[in-house]
């Protein structure tokens, strides 16, 4: 497998996801904050996950930590445990958006007045 493949693989691709991207709010700062929040959360999870694996691997092996982490294959039980923890983090960070999905707060939609400025 030393030979370079015959088909060239471009380093970068993707007109759709490149550039300034799309905005959904009148104030683009809100779009930016939400993007940052997502990336922050992904980073928090990624570091947390690495520690998870590190601890698991250390317990199992105790040596060659870096290589061992990359080579680790989770068991079905471990996958389930990590998924549960991950979902809990998602719920914690983004629960606010579910808690206050409307400008009037958590009151049931059906009980809200049908007229008036609710924007």
């Amino acid at each position, binding site marked *: 497998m030393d030979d370079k493949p015959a*088909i060239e693989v471009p*380093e970068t691709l*993707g007109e759709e996801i490149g550039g300034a*991207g799309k905005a959904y709010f009148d104030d683009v700062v809100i779009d930016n904050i939400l993007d940052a929040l*997502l990336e922050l959360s*992904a980073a928090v999870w990624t570091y947390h996950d690495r520690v998870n694996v590190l601890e698991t691997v250390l317990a199992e092996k105790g040596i060659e930590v870096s290589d061992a982490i*990359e080579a680790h294959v989770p068991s079905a039980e471990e996958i389930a445990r990590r998924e549960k923890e991950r979902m809990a983090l998602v719920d914690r960070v983004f629960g606010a958006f579910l808690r206050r*999905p409307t400008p009037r707060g958590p009151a049931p*939609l059906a009980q809200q007045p*049908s007229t008036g400025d609710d924007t």
Partner: protein
Amino acid sequence: MNRGMIGVTPRPTTLADESYLEFITSFRRLAIQQMFPKVAEHGEIRLAQAMESGALEAEDGHVPLTEIQRIFGENPVTPTFQRFVRTQQEMMWRRTRESFLRDADTLMAWMEEAAAKAPERLHIEPGFTPPEYTRREIHCQPGGYTDDPLGGAVYHYGTKVFYEGFNDQDELHAELVERATPPADGKVARVLDIGCSIGQATTLLKDRFPDAEVWGLDVGEPMIRYAHARALDHGKEVHFKQALAEDTGFESDSFDLVLSYIVFHEVPVQKMREILAETYRVLRPGGSFTIYEFPSNDKGQVSASTRFLVDYDSRNNCEPYSPDFVAADFRGIIAEAGFEVADGPGLSNDFLQSIVATKPA
């Protein structure tokens, strides 16, 4: 680094990539399963209130899409949902491609090795150029299905995230194949999977019909090469061909069963007609065509919230042809091609319609 597989799913090339993408999977689950129902609930209630008060009137029994957009957009959860879904999709593709690009040489060599080992089952015409309409970055995948040599690997992991972890072991494709309707006479000697992408259903069709000659067809060479190498790894003797579904190059009356999974909403309506005519041509009399597809709304079949979602998806997830598909009389167009059209067995994903089109014997 090649970190191997979990079952039939390849792993990203670093643990950090895998963790990041698993986070996206969990987040996507929250956005789609928990947040969209809030968008839908609020919008449907507001729409009903506007209709009841007379502030909004249906035109020919339909609420105009612009009104649905306006009313749904009044709630800030709507742009929040839109922001989140777009961002997670961009994050997913960016990281998935970054991850597999690290291992590009190995991946390319793996596909080339497979091509050398079983060339009789990989059918790529030198000089074939995908027409412009197929070269869209569908679902925002970088390079789409045609222009990224790593597209098969990127698609495979990207769709694992898209399916929120519920198709890690091809469970969804197993259901598609299990519920595919064979011809009434039961004779299945030759099977075709059109728009097969990486051949997940194609190989499972071979499992279901082990004595049949099974073909997967797709316009994307990266998809076909990945599908072929993957099938070889799995020990499945199936053929993969790069061609247009509207111009397959197969002989007339040469297949007993054809399957398509969410293909038609990815092509213009005129191409849909051509694909149906071509499928009719290659099916033998009495042959059956199983179609799983986006919903149709030509007779106002779907809810306002589904219309809102499909419209959003079209404009924000690079589905350029889906609005015209959804508005078209899909079943009528299938019938115009000569097929007898009936409902097929339902799927767990009830968003999709299931149709069986039979070429009269």
